[in-house]
């Protein structure tokens, strides 16, 4: 009788806990090194100067990978611009619920040059991920994607 009660209590407690966890983790990897911040606009204006160097950036989280949480985009201090923070699948999982919060990310900047076809696919994928309409005929130039591969991220409220 006691074992039955214990088992039922355990199962109901587990179900309650699993449904009420908040996942408040705000430090990923080693956490960001906030002591030397570089503005995203500074990096994006001359990205070649920062390639493969470790930098720390700060910005509002404006997009998060909906499926795997493997990337997020931080708003630049200049209008319309963002910088992608990308990790290998599973290394860090950025929660969708962090959108609108401020993130700090530390890591090397990398460049991915795309040809025109890859550019179209890349932009189409991004639009699909965000439920946005996309016309591939509007893409006439190949782009180079710059992204930061973080070793540490800190998300502040």
């Amino acid at each position, binding site marked *: 009788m006691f074992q039955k009660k214990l088992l039922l209590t355990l199962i109901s407690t*587990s*179900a309650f*806990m*699993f*449904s009420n*966890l908040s*996942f408040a*983790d705000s430090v990923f990897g080693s956490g960001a090194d906030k002591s030397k911040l570089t503005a995203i606009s500074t990096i994006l204006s001359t990205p070649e100067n920062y390639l493969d160097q470790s930098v720390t950036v700060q910005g*509002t989280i*404006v997009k998060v990978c*909906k*499926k*795997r*949480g493997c990337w997020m985009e931080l*708003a630049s201090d200049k*209008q*319309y611009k963002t910088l992608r923070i990308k990790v290998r699948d*599973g290394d860090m*999982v950025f*929660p*969708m*619920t962090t*959108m*609108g*919060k*401020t993130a700090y990310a530390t890591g090397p900047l990398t460049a991915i040059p795309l040809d025109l076809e890859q550019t179209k696919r890349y932009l189409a994928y991004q639009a699909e991920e965000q*439920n946005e309409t996309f016309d591939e005929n509007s893409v006439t130039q190949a782009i180079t994607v710059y992204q930061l591969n973080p070793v540490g991220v800190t998300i502040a409220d």
Partner: protein
Amino acid sequence: MFKNVNWFKLNRSLHRDIGYFCVGVTLIFAISGIALNHVEDWNPNYQVIHNTQTIPALKQMVERDSFETDLLISLQLNSKIKARFWQSPSQLKLFTTNEQTLMLNLDSNQVIIEQIKPRPILRSLNFLHLNEARKAWTYFSDLYAVMLIFLALSALFMIKGKKGVWGPRAIIVVAGFAAPLAFIFYYAS
């Protein structure tokens, strides 16, 4: 020393008790495994709800000092704006304190309200399955994997004689190896 040990009985007892212990974790990995396997078809972690509303003269409204307050009232949202981002000259994103993203299109006067809600229970199961917790969970899940190996191997010695794995039922074990091998052969070659 081990002469008097009944290995058959010990194997069955260990298989039973370790099996009981593994029930909970197996359910966690199995349920979240199905959910995550179909990540291309649905979002296993979050429920994302879109609600589109039209606000007349949105472009003029944006220029007002009281724009954000007015917009929230128009949309009947009881929250505050915590951050904003101009995606393009005609597209503005506003982030509320209630985990909503308001996507404004000034050309079409449309506002898409995106509400993100973590899926109850499933989000927690996926959190463990994908080892987002790391730390001690890594070692616990390693231990679970070792216990699964034990369960698989001890299952071979559960029944003696022709009804066991050395009888005709060996074909079932062979099938268990053959199925994944066939997939490897078909997809990876």
